[in-house]
């Protein structure tokens, strides 16, 4: 069963991710901030990380850059969640080594499609 770590401080979105991903058979772990997210990534070694760029302690870019430096999870796909304009989001995911982005407000069909696609991609 794929494990998905959701690093998201905004409760409404975190609940939505939990509901949608659980209903599709994924095991979901929730982290409300970046520090907790880094700890949980090391502990649970997820198959996919959903990462909000706006977090209350360390921001999403910094979390992504740290994940890419943790050998046990360095190649795990990261799906960024952001309200940023498309051009900025694309630039950020490219330079921070993330694998895709999901625009806010969340479209469930898009969420499912991206998660399925990233979980089907073998780690690089």
């Amino acid at each position, binding site marked *: 069963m794929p494990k998905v770590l959701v690093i998201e401080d905004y409760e409404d979105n975190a609940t939505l991710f939990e509901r949608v991903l659980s209903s599709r058979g994924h095991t979901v772990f929730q982290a409300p901030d970046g520090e907790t997210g880094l700890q949980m990534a090391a502990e649970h070694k997820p198959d996919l990380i959903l990462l909000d760029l*706006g977090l209350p302690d360390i921001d999403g*870019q*910094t979390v992504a850059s740290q994940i890419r430096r943790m050998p046990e999870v360095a190649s795990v796909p990261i799906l960024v969640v952001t309200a940023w304009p498309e051009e900025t989001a694309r630039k950020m995911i490219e330079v921070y080594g993330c694998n895709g982005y999901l625009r806010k407000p969340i479209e469930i069909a898009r969420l499912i499609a991206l998660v399925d696609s990233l979980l089907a991609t073998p780690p690089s």
Partner: protein
Amino acid sequence: MASLPPTTDSPIELRPASAFSVKQLTIIYNQTRVDYLVPMPMNMARMIEYIQVYDIDLENSFVAMQDEKMIALGMLGVREGRAWITRLGVLPGDRRHGLGLRMMTSLLEAAERKGIQFTMLEVIKNNTPAYKLFLKLGYRDVGNLLVLRRPPGPPRSYPAGKAAWLSRNEALTLLDSRSGLPPWTNQNASQRNAADIYGLAVTLPDGSSGCLVHQRQRFVMSRFVMQTLSGDPAAVGRELLAQLHNRFFDLDTQIENIYTDDPHLPAFYEMGYVESFARIEMHRGDAALKDAS
């Protein structure tokens, strides 16, 4: 976004932010930003740091209350001869009913009661409602600012000159020679108030030189103040960044509020920095103080 009806007709009361806990201020701040393009949420530790580093005067900052519910926040930073409007936000369902204007008016009146006529602020580019509000209140554009990011990694070009790594006290001394009035976040007082400040001075083979004061924490470097003492700023900037990223290649970097016409900016792009978002800096009144202190 469509205009929403006010949640209630009850009167709105503005109370000093000092009457609220840090936890309450953090909650209302985050709630007002939840639908922003760049929400920049904070936890309590970051809110405490923000208040301390930016000299936020909580007695003269306000929380708007309606039916005992927090619906808006506006903060005032106060330094000698100047004040700064920051963290201004209204809950999404309570916008477009004049509350932003009322918060701003109260903050400006609070500054004036302290004898301060000159105020500064930054607004995120394309936040048109806020920008129009500030124009209406007499603010004028004074500069365009960028927030830049660079992920960890070695520099694109390696150092060519000599570097001296400086302690906090040595680094803060470098700020004394600054001129001009930078954005509030980058003023000398902000650097002095911040933790984990260090310095770097470089001399290039051709004799040109410069220095960089910055904050270096567990995951991130930030709070850059870059100065060229002699030579071409782009070349000096390149050497400073090459030295820094060669030594601290494992740290993420965030540059807050660098002017788009800063002569060091090309060096940042050459070293792999990318634009995160842009702000407009605005002033109201005339600055009596013309240095960065």
